[in-house]
């Protein structure tokens, strides 16, 4: 052996199902292993929420849902950071990126938010690509010509803004409501997305949007 393994904590998946959630049936509550109160929200509630916001806010529906998701994402990131820092006995920003990616992927899987794939290959150029299979609010969506997962886009932007300590925005670039295989999102600083706003609004393909963003300075 070249180095001692004893300094490295021997910890596995924090979110492993049997350990992660505890039901308290007498009180009718559900807590995670850190004692945070959890709820199981059905897909129907999210559909009703989206439809109601759409009815009352019309074209601004996406903006409102994104804002809700953003607030939720920031809170979720703070909770994730606190719990995983304690579990791995190391601050989140001191943990390897691979461990962070595995834990966040596990968080999505075990909360039923979908199967997450993070692509950090353009991170040095200021872009983070996220692909989600089986996302919430996406299993049973009506076909449309535009992306409908504003809640998830907001959630990711809130989460990664909190993690990165820099204001980040998120745009959805693929959606199953548009007939695509998975939901894809691109995160970067808001001014970069603003610069290609027309391209985004015209519903261009994921690769085209990523290519346009790469031409813009980070």
């Amino acid at each position, binding site marked *: 052996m*070249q180095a001692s393994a004893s300094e490295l904590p021997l910890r596995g998946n924090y979110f492993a199902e049997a350990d992660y959630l505890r039901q308290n049936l007498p009180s009718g509550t559900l807590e995670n292993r850190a004692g945070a109160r959890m709820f199981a929200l059905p897909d129907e509630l999210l559909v009703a929420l989206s439809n109601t916001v759409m009815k009352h806010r019309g074209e601004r529906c996406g903006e409102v849902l994104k804002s809700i998701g953003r607030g939720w994402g920031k809170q979720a990131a703070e909770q994730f950071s606190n719990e995983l820092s304690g579990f791995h006995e190391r601050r989140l920003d001191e943990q390897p990126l*691979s461990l962070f990616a*595995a834990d966040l992927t596990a968080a999505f899987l075990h909360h039923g938010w979908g199967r997450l794939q993070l692509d950090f290959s353009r991170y040095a150029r200021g872009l983070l690509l996220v692909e989600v299979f089986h996302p919430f609010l996406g299993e049973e969506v009506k076909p449309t010509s535009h992306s409908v997962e504003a809640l998830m886009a907001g959630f990711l932007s809130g989460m990664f803004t909190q993690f990165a300590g820099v204001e980040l925005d998120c745009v959805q670039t693929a959606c199953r409501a548009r007939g695509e295989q998975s939901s894809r999102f691109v995160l970067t600083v808001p001014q970069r997305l603003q610069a290609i706003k027309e391209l985004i609004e015209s519903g261009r393909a994921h690769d085209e949007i990523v290519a346009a963003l790469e031409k813009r300075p980070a």
Partner: protein
Amino acid sequence: MTNRLHQLARVAEGRYFQPEERDQFLTYAGSVPSRFAAADALSEHEEAVLKATVGDLQQRYPNFAKHHHQGWAKCYRDLQLVIRQDAQALIFDDVQMLDDKTLAWLRTILAANNLTPQFCRDAFTLLRDHVKSRLGPEHYELLQPFLDRNIEVLSEFPEPATPAV
């Protein structure tokens, strides 16, 4: 098995267990001492197995440590985590538990570190082979499904764009 026991309980709701269901419980209960014996044997040989596995990998992948800070120590730790989870899954006779608690999560880390599927296949095949060479056949046979599962799951990811092995 614990998943299967729960499944049996769900199916038998509102009635007594049928003879074949009772037999499944009793077969599992009867196997617990031998499962613990295999886990104890693994624990006893753990250090030798891990050192031999890492030693072989070091010969096969001489550049690995150039790519990863404390690379071999982390490799040792990951193998140790997996082998201990194998022992736990063996006691509960539950491969699904191994997948959920460890393998799916660890695979994300291995892939994100730009390890290749071949490196992981080699690592967990060597791990299995060194367990086989040190444990008696009665203990190895119980562990084998879990050691095979490690290889299957942990080498199933796309080739990295920039391999680091």
